[in-house]
């Protein structure tokens, strides 16, 4: 998964929804960890379409 810094509001919707707990966010950084299994829930839950699959 990749995140668009231009779109992201850092709201944490993806972090709390991730069933794998694979997303880490501090004040302004959003990172995907190895536990990610590409379930795509973060893409769906993101209110501002900031997350997409890696090309």
């Amino acid at each position: 998964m990749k995140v668009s810094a231009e779109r992201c509001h850092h709201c944490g919707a993806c972090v709390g929804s991730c069933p794998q707990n694979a997303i880490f966010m501090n004040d302004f950084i959003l990172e995907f960890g190895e536990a990610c299994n590409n379930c795509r829930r973060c893409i769906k839950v993101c209110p501002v379409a900031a997350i997409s699959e890696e090309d």
Partner: protein
Amino acid sequence: MRTIKCDVVVVGAGPAGSMTAKWAALGGADVVMIEKRPEIGSPIRCGEGISRSWLDRVGIKVDPKWVARTVKGAKIVSPSGNHFVMIDESKAGNEVGFVVDRVFFDKALARDAAEAGAKIMLKTAATSLIYEDGRIAGVKAVSHGEPVEIRASCVVGADGFESQVGRWAGIDTSLKPTDIITCYQYRLTNIDYDPDYTEFLLGSVAPGGYAWIFPKDDNTANVGLGVLLTRLKKPGEVKEYLDRWIARDPRLKNGQPLEAVSGAVSVCAPLDSVAIDNLLLVGDAARMINPITGGGIANSCYAGMFAGKVLAKAVKANDFSMKVLQEYEDDWRAKMENGLWRDWMAKEKLITLSDDTLEMLVEAVSKVDLEKITVHTLLAAVKETYPELVKEFEDLI
């Protein structure tokens, strides 16, 4: 590495964290509260509507500084807009009351915690738990870019919807897709509306959730909506729902945004466990949000008070195991567990209803004369008019 020692480290300085910190410190605990953001209360992730009745019960003094608007009541509006349930202040239910400024409200609660003796560290993000002899013994964190160890006898996870603390400790806080509402909101100005009422609009305007107008001033309101995750078909659709509604509603269509807020809320059943030896969760992190209203502040403040008082006892007993912390589980469950179950079951039913059924429901309930209006009395009115809708959980109503 820098090491800080304390009795209790609270992760997150929202209402749940500050209330825990305040009540624990008042009881003599040495408390450090950390907040990953550089400012408490900002950025906002909230509709900011609260009821009034509970504030004095948790020791919060109303301060005009954080009251943006005192409303006269609320309207629950049917999908067509033709019917509504009017909740008037005169009916003393107090389910609604204030629209607050979270930027000031959260700071006021943090100030109360500080006055009670808690220390606050901003720009400090917890990164993992510290274990010592198999026991939780604090958190590792990054504070202003520098690693720090905060050693504590108890860790409090007050880290909100995106809570990590509970998951690090092995507490299952994971959510089903049908228990997640994704939200978008504008603080919208230049609107022409009734600023004396909060409004909740049901139906396909916000599938599986609702749309809201929470007044901030005569021509500015928090205008937003939340959609059930399973009803979304493409990325970013919740913002499209909001933009479409605003464009269509004559009151809102000339509105201009002052602030955009995104976020998610849990609308799940209460968790089986929110405390273990040396660690407990409070507020949104403990999934205490009301599954019907999406409101979390009152429950957060109650839980924070319960947790803080029990932590003060733990300090005195020098025992942070479940032997002492069980009282926190008992207290918050006694206050809110049945209500959360009832409202979760009601939500499970509500999300299945078509616009036509919701229309009938709102029309029917609007004709019932309610003495006091709360989620509970509204469900009782539904039970009276459409008993089949609440059959599966009628015992709880």
